[in-house]
């Protein structure tokens, strides 16, 4: 009887000690990606608050002319986007960019709703991204009955990602695009899905990949048949990250810099070799 009592008392003691132990807070994982962009996509990563980012994104011509134009590097018709992003408070980023194609001015916002945590209490990172773009072309490009609202397009995206380990991080996304005005045969609304990720192979370098698929959904199309639907965007690239810069060099099939343009207007078919080289440079300042 005495022995049983002693064992019970010892168990109660151990259990109460365990109950008193305060669990340490489950911290976010180390950054799943080295920067906020991944070829043509956004990542769930937002830098520290009061960070200013300057982005230079450049796409060359298609590679299909071979060496005659150095695989598109010397071809005319490149696309360029310059952008500034700022993080006013932790996990919230706002930005403005200006693209050469259609002189789109895009105003964007990104928010990391929840970061992935180390002990898997929250196993994925969840972020949302949205932008509004203003087509900056001459009003004559918008046909009859021009109104300023014809210039607007909208993009919104849910991003879910996971850092599996030190070398592999993957994301999936779902997005909705709306253009107030489009050309004949082109839908105003588009739902897309995509996945992308990085494979870290050295302290500063990673391989990047992306595949974005505009979906053909009968219930939201305005047309009886798909005459020239937007094609998927395949991309593969190499990222180098330093203390103050991120550099991307990549091959991708869409020529747009803003996601809604690629979701609605990309007619380049990567299965037929319609790819182009591109690069991005991001410069970070911390205040």
């Amino acid at each position, binding site marked *: 009887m005495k022995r049983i009592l002693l064992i019970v008392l010892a168990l109660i003691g151990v259990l109460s000690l365990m109950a008193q132990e305060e669990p340490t807070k489950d*911290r976010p994982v*180390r950054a799943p990606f080295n920067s906020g962009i991944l070829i043509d996509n956004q990542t769930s990563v937002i830098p*520290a*608050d*009061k*960070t200013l980012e300057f982005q230079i994104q450049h796409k060359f011509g298609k590679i299909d002319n071979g060496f005659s134009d150095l695989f598109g590097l010397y071809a005319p018709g490149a696309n360029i986007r310059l952008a500034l992003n700022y993080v006013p408070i932790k996990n919230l980023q706002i930005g403005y960019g200006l693209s050469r194609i259609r002189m789109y001015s895009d105003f964007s916002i990104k928010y990391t709703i929840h970061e992935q945590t180390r002990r898997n209490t929250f196993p994925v990172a969840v972020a949302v991204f949205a932008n509004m773009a203003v087509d900056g072309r001459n009003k004559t490009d918008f046909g009859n009955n021009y109104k300023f609202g014809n210039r607007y397009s909208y993009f919104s995206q849910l991003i879910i990602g996971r850092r599996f380990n*030190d070398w592999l991080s993957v994301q999936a996304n779902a997005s909705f695009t709306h253009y107030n005005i489009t050309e004949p045969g082109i839908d105003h609304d588009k739902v897309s899905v995509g996945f992308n990720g990085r494979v870290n192979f050295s*302290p*500063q370098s990673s391989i990047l990949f992306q595949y974005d698929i505009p979906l053909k959904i009968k219930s939201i199309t305005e047309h009886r048949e798909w005459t020239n639907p937007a094609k998927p965007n395949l991309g593969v690239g190499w990222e180098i*990250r*330093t*203390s103050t810069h991120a550099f991307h060099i990549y091959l991708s099939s869409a020529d747009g810099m803003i996601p809604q343009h690629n979701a609605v207007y990309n007619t380049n078919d990567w299965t037929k070799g319609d790819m182009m080289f591109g690069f991005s440079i991001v410069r*970070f300042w*911390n*205040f």
Partner: protein
Amino acid sequence: MKRKFFFRLTLAVAAFAMVAFIIPQEQKKGAPWDIPKEYKEKKNPFKDDASLEKLGKTIYSKHCRSCHGNAGLGDGVMAKNQKTFPGDFSSAEFQKHTDGELYYMSIIGRDEMPNFEKKITDEEERWAVINYIRTMKK
């Protein structure tokens, strides 16, 4: 009159050229750091944590190597652009600093040594770099 003027001008240019070639342009050695007491006494909670070795090397490569060099000898590609020698991490003089002092010098910085509080935000990552710098001891 004109000849005198040109003679004096030539002398002035020659004197300037001589001075320009003579003035030494060595990097100056950094003055001793004025480190606050709370950092001198700061303890490294991840001391001897071998699991952080790879992380420390990654962060050092990204943020430090360009000035401080692969082995911390102050011979990185950007080192020559600095007015102050970045320091020799392998020396006994450097390694005799406490972990807290190394933390201050690495993360808070001064002058040409940037502040990394916003770039290396996680405490574990900061100490991982300090642990990695300790491995550079000769």
